[in-house]
């Protein structure tokens, strides 16, 4: 009790010093673009991909003289994949760093959380990999999306199964129990109805799970003729391994979460034969010139092949730069309006936004054959 007086005093002083001393001014002669995503935490790998792609594009642009003579500067902010942090960093980017436009985040909840800040601060936001349909259907005109929404991916996948595997009518659906997996599940259920494809077994797992024996066991015991899976690559690779361990043989279909070379690397032989839906794959990019030059540039810079996250992020930054150029000023609403009308050759084909802010891209199917990505749409109809 004796020390209480002092404690209260110190608490107050420390708090006020921390709070007051927290402003720092930002320099004004560059065009700032806010880039946020999970640079730490469980999804740090995807955040790193976003960063690599943005870095590459900005270096290029600056080497070419920037925009209106100004250099472009990316302000990176880590949301650790958490919605709470995403709100924080979005506020920081828009209020403290005065960015012209924001790119991010990777996960749908973090993107959704940040989109409120985008609307409040009148800053356009380009979501890099959040595929949840909801992001663009909330009536928020400030949010745009680089990837195609899960509705289209799942619907197209159902169509592909119907077209190439006409006998498959009963499927088991395995998904990661978060927005990403749940979105895929809901949309596939809807999309499948059109073709008479029924989900006879629904299995979930938690993000970061490593043991899928229980889920696969239930699927094996169910009447399903095929497995549709909405996983990210790390869990997806383990599912594949355990699928093989259990001597399961049904056809497997995945989503853009596994559209990453790491999936094949981690899964090894076990992923052979998997089909997955994606908006981008080096296997299907052969006739897209922008993709070819992107792959070449990327290989030169990082000596590896870009994955779907890279291409989505690269397209996002490309359209952001285009919009700033077209807007003719750094005014956020002008940039937003310019962005909504943007039209260019992206790494995933001709790019345009629809009224909601979603791209009008075509989707691709990849089949993994001997550890290589091949164009899945080329396969004959399976009897």
């Amino acid at each position, binding site marked *: 009790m004796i020390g209480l007086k002092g404690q209260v005093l110190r608490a107050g002083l420390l708090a006020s010093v921390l709070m007051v001393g927290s402003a720092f001014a930002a320099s004004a002669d560059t065009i700032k673009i806010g880039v946020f995503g999970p640079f730490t935490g469980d999804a740090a790998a995807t955040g790193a991909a976003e960063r690599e792609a943005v870095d590459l594009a900005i270096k290029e642009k600056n080497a070419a003289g920037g925009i209106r003579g100004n250099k472009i500067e990316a302000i990176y902010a880590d949301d650790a994949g958490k919605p709470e942090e995403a709100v924080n960093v979005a506020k920081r980017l828009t209020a403290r760093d005065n960015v012209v436009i924001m790119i991010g985040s990777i996960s749908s*909840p973090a993107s959704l959380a940040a989109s409120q800040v985008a609307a409040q601060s009148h800053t356009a936001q380009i979501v890099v990999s959040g595929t949840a349909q*909801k992001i663009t259907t909330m009536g928020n005109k400030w949010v745009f999306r680089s990837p195609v929404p899960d509705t289209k991916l799942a619907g197209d996948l159902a169509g592909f199964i119907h077209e190439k595997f006409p006998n498959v009518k009963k499927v088991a659906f395995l998904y990661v129990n978060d927005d990403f997996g749940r979105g895929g599940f809901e949309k596939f259920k809807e999309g499948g109805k059109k073709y008479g494809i029924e989900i006879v077994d629904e299995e979930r797992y938690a993000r970061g799970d490593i043991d899928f024996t229980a889920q696969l066991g239930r699927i094996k015991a169910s009447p399903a003729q095929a497995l549709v899976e909405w996983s990210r690559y790390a869990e997806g690779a383990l599912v594949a391994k355990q699928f093989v361990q259990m001597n399961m043989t049904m056809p497997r279909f995945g989503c853009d979460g596994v559209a990453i070379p790491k999936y094949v690397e981690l899964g090894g032989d076990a992923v052979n034969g998997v089909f997955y839906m994606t908006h981008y794959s080096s296997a299907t990019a052969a006739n897209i010139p922008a993709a070819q030059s992107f792959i070449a540039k990327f290989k030169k810079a990082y000596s590896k092949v870009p994955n779907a996250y890279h291409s989505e992020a690269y397209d996002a930054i490309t359209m952001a730069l285009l919009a700033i150029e077209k807007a003719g000023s750094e005014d956020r609403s002008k940039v937003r309006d310019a962005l909504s009308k943007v039209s260019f050759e992206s790494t995933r084909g001709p790019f345009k936004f629809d009224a909601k802010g979603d791209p009008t891209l075509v989707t691709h199917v990849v089949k993994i054959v001997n550890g290589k990505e091949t164009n899945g749409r080329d396969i004959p109809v399976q009897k």
Partner: protein
Amino acid sequence: MQPAIRLLVLASLAVAPLIQTNTYWQHVFGVALIGAILALGLQLLVGMAGLLSLGQAAFYGIGAYISAALTMRFGVPFILAFLIAGVVTAITSLLLVPIVKLPSSSLAVATLGFNIIVYLILLNEDWATGGSFGLLDVPPPHIFGYELTTERDVYFLCLAVLVLVYLGLDRLVHSRFGRALRAISQDEDAARACGISIIRYKSKCFLVAAFTAGLAGSLYAHHARYLNPNDFTFNKSIEILIMVVVGGLGSLPGAVMGAIVIVLMPEFLRSSGELRLILFGFLVVVLMGVSRGGLAGLAPLLTQRMARLRSSASAKSAEPGEIKS
């Protein structure tokens, strides 16, 4: 006790958003104050009653979702939703009554289990919680016809709640109730011999802590205006525990300080980029070593050292060759 100093602290917290007008910082300050409310509640559990709980984020989440659902679905006015969130959260803490008698390390793991269960309910029961997408567009707080839309308004709301919670807990700690809790934490058998029902008091302590966390959750819901189950995992519980221990076990001002430091420290460390979390980890470890009582115990330590240095320096100049510590 020291009204002048309390006023000074209050004044400095009150002017902080007026001096720092950037809305981002005002937002973060608000988050820090909400963290302080959370830490105060946990301080009662851990610091006063010696109950190591790793499930405080569960109560925080329950309060947040209740408040958001009430205002969004049923149009309940904010003030009412805020209070109901606190009360209902407190009631849910009664679920823990059977486990309060567990020894400390088992209690820690059991409360962690409680947190995981609550998290999974928030995640899986879409009809009530919006599932993994969470709840969007939670309305800003309305008070007596005013809509608190700016960061600064919400900050002052949080500050007001913090002050009330602080004063309330301060009163509790210095009452028969608080003495009973501290007695339990120091010697359960002796406390029972003094007529204290261990289970009842531990349960009441959880009740009060949950009430506080529920209020903090409600504030968070209307401050961040977006709720997602991922913000209420046991990682959050651990973060709150770190706030309390860093601030100093058993000290209410310490809890406030710990929360502010833990929320703001990563913001300051952001410029150190990749090394940020490593530095954060080191700071936590070092702080645990330099001061028994966390931040609350740090300053008297420093003043002691300073005084000792000064006296030894003067002793040195007076009588060279004889230095006593």
